[in-house]
């Protein structure tokens, strides 16, 4: 009699979630890679990328009850969290505090994970280079370029992530792209 495995599509499913945990898992699977890329463009240290990514999803888990997909995409919601996590990281780095203290001491990566994340950071070199070119832009314009041109958010999602109106966001994005072209 032929046997069939039940654990076939462990986490590749895209159907409608039937429980909050499954819904959160879908949100996680759809976005963990782009959130990690967001931090990998900013940090060269795998452990910091891991900590910031972890912090983002821990906060997302804490605030999942407040996430309403009718008001915006999960990606926009997560990037809103990620930008705040990174801002806090920068503030506290400026204070000279240790990474473990900053982020509540997430677990240390094993050797395989460090290698994996180091490769991911390398893969984001192009994006990081664009971010460097954006350094002369105001922070709000830089964020607009990154969220749309690198992270792949729609302007509507990016506007939501940054907490600005769509009109204001489009103006920032347009200005940023113009400045980058002129500066090239």
């Amino acid at each position, binding site marked *: *009699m*032929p*046997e*069939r*495995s*039940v*654990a*076939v*599509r*462990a*986490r590749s*499913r895209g*159907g*409608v*979630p*039937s*429980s*909050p*945990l*499954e*819904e*959160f*898992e879908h949100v*996680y*699977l759809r976005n*963990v*890679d782009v959130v*990690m890329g967001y931090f990998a463009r900013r940090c060269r240290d795998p452990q910091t990328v*891991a900590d910031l*990514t*972890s912090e983002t*999803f*821990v906060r997302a*888990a*804490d605030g*999942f*009850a407040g996430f*309403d*997909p*009718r008001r915006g995409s999960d990606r926009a919601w997560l990037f809103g969290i990620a930008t705040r996590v990174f801002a806090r990281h920068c503030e506290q780095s400026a204070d000279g505090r240790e990474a473990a203290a900053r982020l509540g001491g997430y*677990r240390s*990566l*094993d050797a*395989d*994970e460090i290698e*994996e*994340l180091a490769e*991911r950071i390398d893969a984001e070199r192009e994006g990081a280079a664009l971010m460097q070119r954006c350094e002369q832009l105001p922070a709000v314009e830089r964020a607009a370029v990154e969220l749309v041109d690198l992270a792949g958010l729609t302007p509507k999602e990016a506007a939501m992530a940054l907490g600005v109106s769509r009109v204001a966001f489009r103006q920032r994005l347009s200005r940023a792209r113009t400045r980058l072209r002129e500066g090239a």
Partner: protein
Amino acid sequence: MSRFTEHLWRDLVREHGARIVHTDRPEPARARGARVLRRPRVLAGSTLVLAGVGAVLLVALSGPATQPAFAITTNSDGSVLVELSYAQNQNLPQVNQKLAQMGTHEQIGIQMGTGPAPVPGPVTCKPAPGVSGPTVRVLNGTNGTEVIKPGESGDNTAEGTFHLVSCGVYPENTSLNTLRGYTGNTGNTGG
């Protein structure tokens, strides 16, 4: 998923899973199947289970309107009964997440075969080396046999008649690949 993202998800489920499970989500985000929780037939089924055990956890429902995805029952002797549906075979990771949330830091791997169960009833899972948790039994479908009709397979299994061939209990962090290849106890134990 990469190793890091797999570990992060595991940590999130372990540390925050219980809270997320009880999150009140906006209605449109829920699966239509989740509303089956309110249907009388399902509630009646959970009541029947309650009559004979110490604690019952009926977990999120999906798929065929009248069949729960899975239910986990902790008996008064500490043993665990997992009732699941092969048609909704996506739910094995959910079952294992739920076991972890219930404090049973182990997970199950099961193998299905075609045709009806030779002997009706649940299958007692064989613990892998190093596993010392409670006895886990798995009941598939109705008394060991599940008939998956056209349109009910959830594009994950074939249609037809299936039964649980074997079942094993693994440490919490066992990979799904291992679970897929596992052959534990064979056939129904009658208990």
